[in-house]
């Protein structure tokens, strides 16, 4: 057994025994970022629990977490003591991978995981001649052009299109201009707008064909209306509105914050073009259980209040936790189910719907999640009013109020609900409504970082790590300067070394 193991094992055992009733502290990520605001894990996000823990319930720690735990005096509160404990183990190499904890934190790797190390590409041996096909370690315009063309045009450049890049005396700045000219055209082209960008929305919209507008699943009810048999197609909502808003906000140099702020709907015209409307949209199909958009303008907040988003995520729940978590994950890039983005609110969770979430192992996440979800409580999921029931009985049609706003919904569904007690909180800020929730989100670093990360991961097929985190930081911080244009973000991305240097 190595010296390291001999030291670590007793510490682990001691920690395990002395804290048998311990659990992970959701205040940890926030305190960490107050200590290291400039590190990669705190730029537009907060670290998840796995930075220190191997398990949160029962609590168990990795090597870094154990070192921090041992450095805690445990005399004052955890959140007060944590900064000093973190700094006390800065110089150590907890996981024994050859990098100090501080270096690992600054370079974006995990100080408690010896398999996670700062990416330090080996320098090319100087005795080797240059690669005949690529500019290794430098921005290679031809390589960047091929990659950008594949990603945003849907095909590689042709032999003729690459001709300027083969010229031995080609001017690098002119080649870059050529790349941007070609990609700008593609960002307005059919592939990107009808396929490439659309597919990027799939995991956020999460369509279900048999519950969408084109559903072919028919339900024949065992009761009849005054007009006869009741046979309806099972439509929960029309997610094509979500896809159209996704593409609209992320194309044409528009403000991507409209993903969360749009009060309009993007409708498809008969000729295939799109236009915007702020009017309510009636269910266009009498044989469908729902359709159109029913949310009044003042309550709208882009993608997170579409009929599809609300019905798909809220369904029949009283407190729409899934809906809030989906919004947090899709547009702020933090997945609470993976213990990301934990920013607990004092006194929470209140367990307003009696789901038992006050238990310590649940409260770790619900102290963040439940205050996020309060803002969604007045929005219907799969729920409809008495008017629709009459319509069903009289005419055999159902025009469900799915996704509509109902001020009384929280108190109807959760009798102990109080707007004074159930205070929505997002990113540590109290908000009065979902609309305000969306405004705080759209202005946050987390939104900008997530947006840049969406395009970064799409282009490079991995999460940024090491020095790439800094490049991501430049990208998302540039969004504000660029009016939150996704197209401009893509142009900036193409210019980065991580994109263009093989």
């Amino acid at each position, binding site marked *: 057994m190595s010296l390291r193991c001999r030291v670590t094992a007793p510490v682990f055992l001691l920690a395990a025994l002395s804290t048998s009733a311990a659990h992970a502290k959701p205040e940890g990520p926030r305190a960490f970022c107050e200590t290291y605001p400039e590190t990669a894990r705190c730029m537009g996000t907060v670290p998840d629990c796995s930075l220190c823990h191997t398990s949160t319930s029962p609590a168990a720690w990795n090597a870094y977490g154990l070192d921090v735990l041992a450095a805690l005096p445990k005399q004052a509160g955890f959140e007060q003591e944590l900064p000093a404990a973190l700094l006390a183990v800065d110089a150590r190499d907890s996981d024994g991978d050859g990098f100090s904890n501080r270096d690992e934190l600054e370079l974006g790797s995990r100080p408690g995981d010896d398999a996670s190390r700062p990416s330090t590409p080996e*320098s090319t041996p100087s005795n080797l*001649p*240059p690669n005949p096909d690529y500019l290794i370690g430098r921005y290679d315009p031809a390589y960047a052009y091929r990659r950008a063309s594949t990603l945003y045009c849907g095909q590689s450049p042709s032999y003729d299109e690459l001709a300027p890049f083969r010229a031995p005396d080609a001017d690098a700045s002119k080649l870059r201009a050529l790349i941007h000219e070609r990609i700008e055209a593609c960002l307005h082209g059919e592939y990107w707008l009808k396929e490439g960008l659309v597919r990027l929305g799939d995991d956020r919209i999460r369509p279900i064909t048999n519950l969408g507008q084109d559903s072919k699943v028919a339900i024949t009810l065992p009761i009849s209306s005054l007009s006869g048999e009741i046979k309806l197609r099972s439509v929960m909502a029309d997610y094509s509105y979500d896809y159209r808003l996704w593409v609209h906000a992320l194309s044409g140099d528009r403000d991507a914050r409209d993903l969360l702020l749009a009060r309009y709907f993007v409708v498809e015209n008969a000729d295939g073009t799109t236009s915007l409307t702020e009017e309510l949209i009636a269910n266009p199909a009498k044989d469908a259980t729902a359709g159109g958009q029913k949310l009044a303008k003042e309550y709208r907040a882009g993608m997170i209040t579409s009929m599809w988003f609300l019905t798909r995520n809220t369904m029949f729940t009283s407190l729409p936790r899934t809906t809030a978590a989906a919004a947090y994950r899709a547009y702020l890039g933090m997945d609470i189910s993976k213990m990301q983005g934990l920013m607990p609110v004092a006194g929470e969770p209140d367990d307003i719907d009696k789901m038992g979430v006050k238990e310590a192992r649940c409260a770790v996440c619900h102290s963040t999640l439940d205050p996020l979800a309060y803002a969604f409580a007045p929005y219907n999921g799969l729920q409809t009013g008495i008017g629709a029931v009459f319509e069903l009985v009289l005419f055999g049609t159902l025009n469900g109020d799915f996704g509509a706003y109902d001020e009384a919904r929280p108190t109807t569904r959760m009798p102990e609900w109080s707007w004074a007690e159930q205070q929505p909180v997002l990113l540590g800020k109290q908000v009065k409504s979902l609309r305000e929730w969306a405004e705080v989100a759209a202005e946050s670093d987390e939104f900008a970082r997530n947006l840049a990360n969406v395009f970064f991961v799409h282009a490079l097929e991995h999460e940024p790590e090491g020095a790439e985190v800094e490049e991501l930081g430049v990208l998302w911080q540039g969004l504000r300067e660029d009016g939150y244009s996704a197209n401009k973000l893509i142009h900036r991305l193409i210019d980065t070394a991580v994109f263009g*240097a093989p």
Partner: protein
Amino acid sequence: MRTLMMITALACIACESSPSIPSPKDQPVSPVPQKPVPAQPERPAQEQEAPPPYALSQGKSVLWKRYAAFERDLMRGLDLGRDELCRELGDRNCIRDVHLIALGGNDPFGSGIHRPPPGTLGTTPMVVDRVLLSACSARAAADKADKQGEAKVFGALQLAGPAPAPGSEAVAKTTETLFRRLLARDPKPSEAALIESLLEPGEDAPQSAEEFAVLACFVVGSSLEFLFQ
């Protein structure tokens, strides 16, 4: 309420599934096209593993050319329509309808798969082979049937005749055309020699010009350079 219960039941029926996906792996860059397995004996392991005598990329710089670009590059390179590339049972589009996931796409509407696979799957190589052989064969057949002298890719070959002689102008021109159309560059001498080697006598050697055309097309199309960026 009954309606809502029905919808609930239907929602359960419509549950999504997610595929079992292997971990992504970086793919090595190779400027030299891969050989089709059936056509050539394996090179000695020592020769395959010898590092090139020049600098190599150290980063995660090689990306999979997924279904859309794979499809469009083949369509342009072989001058074929989308539905001419490959159809399963003569009916379903191989890339879009049948093998989308294996080629790096995702299918939210048909399969409830909302994310593309992070890396190539175990079935990806055979699907790529399937599509390439179909597309190359379709191009060769179309050019063979051409009576107007407007063959798109294999105009240098007498496709109804025997395999061309090694070192012939027809082989060189065909190699150049394939490289320009599929890889957007000219072949290097070593690469041209590799295509030539397909014609070396042996039981796997192509007997007809059409067979050679398909094989040469497959070699270039199955290169790492065509399949990855």
